[in-house]
């Protein structure tokens, strides 16, 4: 096997508390998306398309969920004779008070990076859903003047929240810092803000130096923080991404982004663009549509069984929707079941939710109801926040 020019690091330790209860037993990286995928499929597919052979996954607390999805990495051509996927076990932040564990945190990275034999390394998270071409970013990095390259997308002000990370761009188009939107100045009159996509690309040797310096300190800092400071100290090339971007860091954004996939332009940009999105495939039967079924303006996974009506919704695999049931503006995950005569609207149903017959579960467009994994509902009063509860 030829050694790749780039290695990749995906840090799955992303803050989950704003996505509870969906993230109770899974990291952001394994949240289901668009009727078919998990969020981590997007960075992994970008990696595969760029012919990257060494991927270090730094595991979150819910390791099991990631392992179940990744398995050998074969779905992304990462079950290789050399390189492949390296999983680094989760260690809680509090445990890094321990000198040995702290040293090991940095050593895991540097060992992995040295072993990869790659000249460049890209560092990514999973919560930015996009279809990025890493080779284009690499070429941009090589052509740029700075030691590190960052990636952003211009978003309208209306889609930026005060806590979002953004790039402070110079007039030459380089990034002088990564700052939260609320700390920005001089944005008067601007309608768009360069939203930072948590992607860094730099020389592997530079990254190793950075980690070795950090290992000397008694204070524990995760890689993303180190890289933020590195940008501040060195300036960065700023690569503009122009495709579809969703930042999954709240329930509302998760809900909205799923429904945005019903817009054909978004669907094409994310799922039928230059990078084919790969995911673990399960052996499932085709979806079946009964005599009175109606499915309009919706995405469906395979193995669903539809007797009722689905509209403006995203429905994952193996979902059953019975006669006279209505699913409307909802995200319904794998294996859920909606019984005869029930209505589910403005809602997110996690995996394996069962809704009994003749119920009305209705949230609000700007505050969808969330039902937990395997929750069984036979009375409307069991559902918190339903408009009809």
């Amino acid at each position, binding site marked *: 096997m030829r050694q790749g020019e780039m290695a990749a690091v995906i840090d799955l330790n992303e803050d989950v508390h704003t996505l509870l209860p969906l993230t109770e037993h899974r990291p952001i990286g394994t949240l289901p998306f*668009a009727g*078919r995928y998990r969020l981590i499929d997007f960075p992994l597919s970008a990696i595969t398309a760029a012919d990257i052979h060494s991927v270090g996954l730094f595991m979150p607390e819910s390791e099991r969920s990631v392992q179940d999805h990744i398995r050998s990495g074969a779905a992304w051509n990462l079950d290789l004779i050399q390189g492949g996927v390296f999983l680094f076990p989760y260690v809680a932040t509090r445990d890094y008070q321990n000198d040995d564990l702290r040293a090991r945190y940095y050593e895991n990275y540097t060992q992995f990076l040295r072993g990869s034999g790659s000249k460049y390394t890209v560092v990514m998270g999973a919560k930015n859903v996009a279809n990025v071409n890493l080779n284009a970013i690499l070429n941009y990095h090589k052509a740029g003047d700075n030691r590190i390259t960052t990636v952003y997308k211009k978003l309208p002000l209306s889609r930026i929240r005060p806590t979002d990370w953004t790039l402070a761009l110079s007039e030459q188009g380089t990034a002088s810092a990564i700052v939260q939107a609320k700390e920005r100045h001089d944005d008067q009159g601007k309608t768009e803000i360069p939203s930072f996509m948590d992607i860094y690309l730099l020389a592997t040797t530079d990254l190793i130096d950075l980690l070795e310096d950090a290992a000397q300190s008694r204070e524990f800092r995760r890689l993303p923080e180190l890289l933020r400071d590195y940008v501040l100290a060195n300036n960065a090339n700023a690569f503009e991404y122009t495709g579809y971007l969703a930042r999954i860091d709240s329930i509302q954004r998760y809900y909205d982004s799923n429904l945005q996939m019903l817009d054909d332009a978004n669907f094409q940009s994310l*799922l039928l663009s230059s990078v084919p999105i790969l995911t673990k*495939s399960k052996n499932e039967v*085709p*979806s079946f549509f009964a005599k*009175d079924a109606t499915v*309009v*303006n919706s995405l469906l*996974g395979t193995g669903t069984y539809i007797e009722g009506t689905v509209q403006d919704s995203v429905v994952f695999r193996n979902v059953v929707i019975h006669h006279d049931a209505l699913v409307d503006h909802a995200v319904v995950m794998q294996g859920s079941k909606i019984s005869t005569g029930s209505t589910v609207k403005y809602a997110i149903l996690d995996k394996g939710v069962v809704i009994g017959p003749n119920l009305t579960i209705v949230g609000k467009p700007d505050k969808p109801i969330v039902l937990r994994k395997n929750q069984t509902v036979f009375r409307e009063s069991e559902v918190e926040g339903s408009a009809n509860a």
Partner: protein
Amino acid sequence: MSTEMLGMILAGGQGTRLGKLTKNTAKPSVPFGGRYRIIDFTLSNLSNSGVNTVGVITQYQPLELNRHVQNGASWGLNERGAGVTILQPYASSEGEKFFEGTAHAIYQNMAYIDSYNPQYVLILSGDHIYKMDYERMLAFHKAKKATLTVAVMPVSLEEATRFGIMNTDDTDRIIAFEEKPEKPKSDLASMGIYIFDWAPLKKYLMDSYATDGKMEDFGKDVIPAYLAHNEPTFAYAFHGYWKDVGTIQSLWEANMEFLSPNNPLNITNRNWRIYSQNEALPPMFFTKSAKVQRSMVTDGSYVAGTVEHSILSQNVKVGEGSTITDSMIMPNAVIGKNVVIDHAIIGEDAVVGDNGEVIGKPDDIAVIGYGEVVGRKEKA
């Protein structure tokens, strides 16, 4: 290395009665039921029966079949020292060898079979739609102390004239065999599924090819020879859904039966799954104008039209204003806008341009071949 029972799938036939659909591909790799290919049923039966060493004998346009089967991993048939092997014609120091009949194909692949040293060889076709537990058939074979067991199915007496028909005694021993009899004496039709003790079968084949070489076909040559030599030959009765999909008409019927909610195949039964290759395709997309009823749709499909009592395979596109009725659409087919498709089979990668019409009748199914382009196609 030793295997109790080795499976051998005869997948070499050209399938001429499937016309355009098998011009460039072997019959077992023809798509079926939305996300399957015909051979998936046999391969899944083997996996579910615990038969994990399988040779697939092929010689007619095998590229697509090879790509589909790959290393057998999709069916769990990829264990070290076992798994699926594709067997094609080859040359040896004695010359070049194409396969001239079902039994001849086994004879030509003796070296492969012997390398696993099996006690039993299970001979199967690659073009039947059914679910069957071969382990139970083997238990029957052992209990009867048979050297050959033939799976049989009751058929109507009219149908019986089209099959090889077995007469049995009350111990299920086969006492006579007639190929397509005019006046059938029994309703037990051979399904083309055999369990042989390997040692005697090998001897029959070797003796034949050392002398007259007449042992070409199992039905015509081998079974009569076994009966003539008084080999203990038994009939194993199968009761369940079974369909030979060797003609356009039967392929269409089997697909329509597959659509029925009461289909006895019970495809959703997780204790006897039908496996296939799994590709990572996008979810199905239904636009505001979609209408889909009494139908099956598969991953990667995009539906803006009306689909009624039909099957859409992977990656099928159906444009606005189009209507598909009582039809089977194979993978990657593109159906334009305002198209009418009725009682038809549309081949893989075919294109039916805007305003096109493909209309057949219940007893005369319309067929569009693989990659064929019909009707007007607008520029992209």
